[in-house]
């Protein structure tokens, strides 16, 4: 027995207890630290996707679009302009004011800045092709008013802060709702930009040019400016359909179709493999394993040709000459084995059916149910957990699938699925350095799967032990 009265022993016990606690504490800290490190690219990109220019240097988490004070200002402006607190925009018969503050060291040199509503295309890519409604054609700016002047200290430089205010008027009439009201303010060299009703989207030439993308944005229009651009600036030039919405719909359709097909076919195949012995069983296993190892680069060549020829002409019976550039092609075929019945899903079902007791089926057989009735009305309802896993994992795989849709879906623009669409964004807007639009598109494309992950976490993490990882 340990002698607890002995001071030496007690000290040693305390010491060992301390060691245990320290170990647990350190492990927690390490867990948090590593998680933060590994998630930081995602977190940082989500925050930056709100910024006017996500390439701001030095990079910072400070984002004007996520500051509640700016939301209030944006809401007020949107309301005053007539477009509403949330979505903003300017409507006829409204006027609103906008102020900007400058610092000047020597008040003698004070010169009024110049305010203009520029005729500017909203962005690169498709936005540059589309003909927008220019706010400049409809809005008027009042005389510039100096609304405040007070002593100010800027980094130990004493001088004066001056505030200028303009009133923007949209005369009564039947003008359109202006979705975007840009503003440029050009100041003389002596003026240093301090602040404005809404923070400037861009400051150029050391703050001499303050440029605003939208001065009547409303809360959503301000905070989700980039996100709105994803919808506004991506229209198919041929059909006029909104590309992002089209891609989203395509992805959803493909994913749901693949889930349904996999549920039906993988459970049937899994059941046969789990419960029946038949000639060629081992050959089948060998082929399935081989299909996991052989690269999809080997099989996609023929699979592409099969789709091109309409599955040996069978689809001609339905009046379709080729399955290329159709969603059906993405669903039916697959770069690797097949998207309709994935081997991994067959394995999930097989493992599950093997874990069920055989007595259930035997009872059904004794009651006179045939093989198919037994499967569909007894076994399948019992397989709900496995069917859940198949649903979630197939949806995720289909939603994220890249290689096969990229081969099958090339034209027109609105037939693509989301990942191919995001790649297209990257090609079009990446060259122009317009990362706000790319990042917000990417973030939105990830939302469905992330939501699914948060809700059905256990299925994903189960999939981990099935080896559901990518390189």
């Amino acid at each position: 027995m340990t002698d607890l009265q002995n001071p030496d022993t007690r000290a040693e016990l305390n010491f060992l207890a301390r060691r245990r606690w320290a170990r647990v504490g350190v492990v927690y800290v390490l867990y948090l630290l590593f998680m933060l490190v590994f998630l930081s690219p995602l977190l940082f990109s989500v925050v930056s996707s709100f910024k006017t220019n996500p390439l701001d240097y030095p990079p910072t988490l400070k984002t004007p679009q996520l500051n509640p004070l700016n939301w209030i200002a944006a809401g007020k402006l949107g309301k005053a302009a007539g477009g509403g607190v949330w979505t903003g925009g300017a409507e006829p018969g409204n006027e609103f004011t906008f102020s900007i503050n400058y610092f000047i060291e020597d008040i003698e040199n004070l010169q009024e800045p110049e305010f203009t509503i520029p005729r500017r295309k909203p962005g690169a890519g498709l936005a540059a092709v589309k003909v927008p409604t220019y706010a400049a054609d409809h809005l008027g700016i009042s005389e510039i008013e100096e609304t405040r002047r007070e002593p100010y200290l800027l980094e130990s430089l004493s001088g004066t802060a001056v505030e200028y205010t303009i009133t923007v008027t949209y005369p009564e009439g039947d003008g359109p709702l202006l979705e975007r009201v840009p503003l440029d303010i050009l100041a003389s060299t002596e003026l240093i930009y301090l602040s404005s009703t809404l923070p400037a989207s861009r400051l150029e030439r050391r703050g001499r040019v303050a440029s605003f993308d939208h001065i009547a944005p409303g809360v959503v229009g301000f905070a989700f400016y980039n996100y709105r651009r994803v919808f506004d600036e991506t229209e198919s030039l041929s059909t006029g359909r909104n590309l992002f919405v089209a891609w989203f719909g395509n992805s959803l359709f493909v994913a749901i179709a693949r889930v349904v097909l996999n549920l039906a076919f993988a459970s049937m195949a899994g059941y046969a493999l789990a419960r029946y012995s038949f000639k060629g069983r081992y050959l089948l296993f060998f082929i399935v394993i081989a299909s996991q190892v052989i690269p999809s680069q080997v099989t996609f060549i023929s699979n592409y040709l099969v789709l091109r020829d309409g599955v040996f002409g069978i689809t001609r019976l339905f009046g379709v000459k080729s399955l290329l550039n159709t969603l059906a092609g993405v669903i039916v075929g697959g770069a690797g084995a097949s998207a309709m019945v994935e081997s991994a899903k067959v394995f999930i079902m097989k493992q599950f059916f093997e874990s069920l007791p055989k007595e259930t089926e035997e009872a059904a057989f004794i009651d006179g149910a045939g093989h198919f009735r037994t499967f569909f009305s007894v076994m399948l309802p019992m397989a709900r957990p496995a069917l859940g896993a198949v649903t979630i994992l197939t949806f995720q795989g289909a939603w994220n699938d890249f290689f096969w849709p990229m081969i099958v879906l090339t034209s027109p623009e609105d037939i693509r699925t989301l990942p191919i669409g995001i790649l297209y964004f990257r090609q079009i807007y990446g060259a122009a350095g317009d990362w706000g639009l790319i990042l917000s598109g990417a973030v939105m494309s990830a939302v469905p799967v992330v939501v699914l992950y948060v809700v059905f976490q256990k299925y994903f993490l189960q999939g981990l032990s099935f080896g559901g990882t990518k390189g």
Partner: protein
Amino acid sequence: MKKQTFIPWIFLLPFLISLSLFFVYASMRALMLSFTNYNLFNDYTFIGIENYKALFRDSNFLFALRNTVFYAFFVTIVQTFFALVLAALLNIKIRGINFFRAGFYLPSVTSSVVITVIFLWLFQRRGMVNFILSRMQALIPSVLTLILIIAAVQTLLVLLEKRRGMPVKILELPLLITSMLIAGLAVTALNSFGIIPIPEFEEINTIWLNTRESFMGIPRPLWAIIIQNIFTTIPTLMLIFLAGLQDVPPVLYEAARIDGAGPYLQFRYITIPSIRPVLFLVLTLSLIGTLQMFDQVAIYGDAVPLQSVITLAYYVYNRMFPGGTLPQVGMASAAAMFLAVITIAAVILQRLLIKSEADR
């Protein structure tokens, strides 16, 4: 198990159709096409092994071969190693593990396009990666001082405890935490008094993407992809290892400790052998995945010179859809066959290695 000749085939029918058409038939056809001069539009003729010979005269193929082999082995080894070390470090039964598991797995849930687009942005010339590098460079003197102070304080504390008769180890955790806190405060003080000033940041403007520069003979854009892949795969592999490690009975470690085995020996003779099946799974998956790397190359696309990142998988695609010139389906098939052989060989080789290790 029921002996049946007819019923199971009906259940298997859809699976068999798709497997035979899109895998068995497809593989055979690719093998056949690799001996032809097919270009999608002609009536092809068989040309023997001309395509295979032509591959080795094509500089793009040779670049692809070098990139793929280096990428696969480097990434597999590094990410497996770090994931294993991390898992061993974190292998302690704690509450709330599910929260952490969920967090670590998150990057693997999103698509490769989203992840790659994000990393492309981080690797811009004025992007986060260069920013972190320049800040780290500026902090080197402070970090060195920090390590020195930690070592000094730790030695002092351990000696003190030893004199009190405690069985302390050199890296005794409670003491280490204390030393770190003290050292942290000391360095902060030294920094703010300007004794060890944080130097002016020298901006690092490494061009990661549109460059022909290389590092260790490997093009810089490929390094960007390597970093991206290692960084995003480690958490997942770590979780797989962790699951394996938590099944190892703690008694084994206790016995080893009593026999006087230190952390390294425990890791070598208990941890590694008991998770050998998991290790095999992870290595196999990593090798297959990395040898077939395609998405990142396609997404980096015109942002980088093609030769610097082209892989065998992308080479196949590029021969099939060259854009502008006639497709060379025969060459594409031959390269695909080559990739398949490499993949199978790597998996078998790695299996043999692990086996022989087990037999020792």
